[in-house]
């Protein structure tokens, strides 16, 4: 039997009595690029942190995360450290603050190799320069000697990317990697990310609120709302026939072709409630135009008849 690269089952993250991530389940196969999409506050980043074992200490994480067949939840910190930065790596959103301002960037990259005993100090320094070249920064050996404040946001994110790829990971989690950057820089970084994960044959879990970005980079799509996965399938299928009213709303909100009668862009009514204040039953009930009394019950994630992908909704959008 082929073991999935990453298998998440019933992952739940609680802060006291409030569930910020509720029973998330999905699996990723080797070499596949998957997008995890949703509005701010829906639990995307927390899901990523929980997978990495880096959720805040105030949070309680339950459920199961199996990476390359091994359970990560409840694993001793030492063993998690052996995976992190090595087989399982991450790029965070904020390149401005993600690097230590007091350390040269070359050193910060080299550190990854040293921590995992992949190279001694001198060898690690040489490989850091190679990695800087790999992320296409000019004059790698000089750049290695720069401090983060001497680099632009885009350059810093390239350094962060070099750190994340230094250990030759099986899975790279990229949490909004371009959100903090200028639009022109965003495109460059995405292109680079796309090329690198292909070249290195690394699986990618791309977390974003930007549908078009996920559409251009990913094959599989997970749509998250209110701490749960509400729809999943191949990107092309979900985009062609969004089944969940939330996905449909996101889709038309981000598409210029869908405007309402007055030529304004469509929006989804209301906003994401704070953690702990989602309605019982279907989490999208209070913002959904199709909601009725059936939606008081939690909808299971299932494949509706005649559809190629899964949705958690009592009233999936009809495309007939």
């Amino acid at each position, binding site marked *: 039997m082929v073991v999935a690269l990453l298998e998440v089952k019933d992952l739940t993250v609680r802060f006291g009595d409030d569930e910020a991530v509720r029973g998330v389940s999905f699996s990723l196969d080797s070499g596949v690029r998957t997008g995890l999409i949703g509005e701010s506050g829906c639990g995307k980043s927390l899901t990523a942190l929980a997978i*990495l074992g*880096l959720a805040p200490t105030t949070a309680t994480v339950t459920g199961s995360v199996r990476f390359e067949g091994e359970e990560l939840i409840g694993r001793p*910190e*030492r063993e998690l*450290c*052996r*995976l*992190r*930065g*090595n087989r399982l*790596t*991450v790029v*965070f959103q*904020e390149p401005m*603050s*993600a*690097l*230590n*301002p*007091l*350390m040269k960037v070359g050193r910060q990259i080299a*550190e*990854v190799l040293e*921590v*995992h005993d992949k190279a001694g100090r001198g060898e690690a320094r040489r490989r850091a320069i190679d990695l800087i070249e790999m992320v296409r920064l000019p004059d790698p050996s000089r750049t290695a000697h720069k*401090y983060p*404040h*001497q680099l632009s946001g885009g350059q810093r994110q390239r350094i*962060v990317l070099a*750190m*994340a790829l230094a*250990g030759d990971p099986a899975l790279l989690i990229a949490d909004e990697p371009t959100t903090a950057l200028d639009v022109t820089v965003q495109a460059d970084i995405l292109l680079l990310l796309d090329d690198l994960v292909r070249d290195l044959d690394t699986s990618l879990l791309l977390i974003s609120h930007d549908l078009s970005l996920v559409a251009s980079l990913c094959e599989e799509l997970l749509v998250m709302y209110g701490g749960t996965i509400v729809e999943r399938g191949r990107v092309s299928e979900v985009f062609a026939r969004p089944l969940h009213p939330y996905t449909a709303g996101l889709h038309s909100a981000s598409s210029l072709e869908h405007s309402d009668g007055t030529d304004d862009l469509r929006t989804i009514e209301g906003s994401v409630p704070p953690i702990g204040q989602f309605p019982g039953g279907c989490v999208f009930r209070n913002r959904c135009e199709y909601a009725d009394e059936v939606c008081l019950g939690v909808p299971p994630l299932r494949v509706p008849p005649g559809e190629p992908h899964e949705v958690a909704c009592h009233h999936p959008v009809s495309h007939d």
Partner: protein
Amino acid sequence: MRPYLRWGALSVTLYLLRRLGIFLLSLVVASILAFVLLSLLPGDQAQTMLGVNADPEALAQLREELGTNRPILTQYTDWIGGVIRGDFGLSRSDASIGSEIVRRLQVTLPLVISGMTLATIIAVPLGTLAAMYNRRLPGTVLSVASQVGIAIPAFWMGIMLVTWIAVRWGLLPAGNFPTAGWAETASAVRSLILPVTVLGLAQGAVLMRYVRSAVLEVLNADFVRTARAKGMTLGQAMRRHGLRNAAIPVVTVLGLQLATLLIGAVVIEQVFSLPGLGRLLLDGVGNRDIPQVQGIVLVITGLVLFINFVVDVLYRAIDPRLRASA
């Protein structure tokens, strides 16, 4: 791209020269202020010495002798010229102010420097632990201990130590710095043990709170999370990336504490009857001994400016961002 100056020898030398220039200029301004403001106080030296009912002729004669009837600029250049040669003039009791200040500094400087060293040795590890174990039992215990340490007045702690350790158990002297000074090394050291302990505990409790909040701040910093994502444990991430970042605000507080203590140690000096600089200043003010006060104020200003200079250089050594705009 903007060219950045390398952290090379030239840049360091230029920086140090510039900073030294600022230091000397500040010292000149401070000396003018200290001299002029104190000289302009109502009730001049001659008047204070002879009393309010003094004979005007005697007053005039004394002013002539003291030179205080000359224009203030002449008086200043005269004074500062002496100071540069190491001559601070004579006090009211005809003692050399310069050598008295030097004698007092031999008590105050060791007291303050050892006290702050002890404070740092206490505060850095305990403050770090308090932050790492924040909201857990060890963190709470340490925070409470530091609060108690801040709340206890230093003089009271001093009196308690004198009562128990010096008087009841007779383990250490209650101050009594030897009149022969550091020539009697052993008894000089012994006389400073209790005062240094009090100073170290009191200042350590304050410093510990700053260390704790600086470390807490860094614990939540993105770059520490990045370090953990690289595969470091929280402890490794803090040692390699966290503590040096946390040192920046702590160095500021350390500098301020040192500067304040040059005079602030007077409370401790009083409790342990140590002949320190703070007490000399208090005596000078009490006697309206203006030349003595002027001398002490100038020396203390110089020391404070020097501490600030060192803090500035340390900042630059720790933080490369400050080296960019040289």
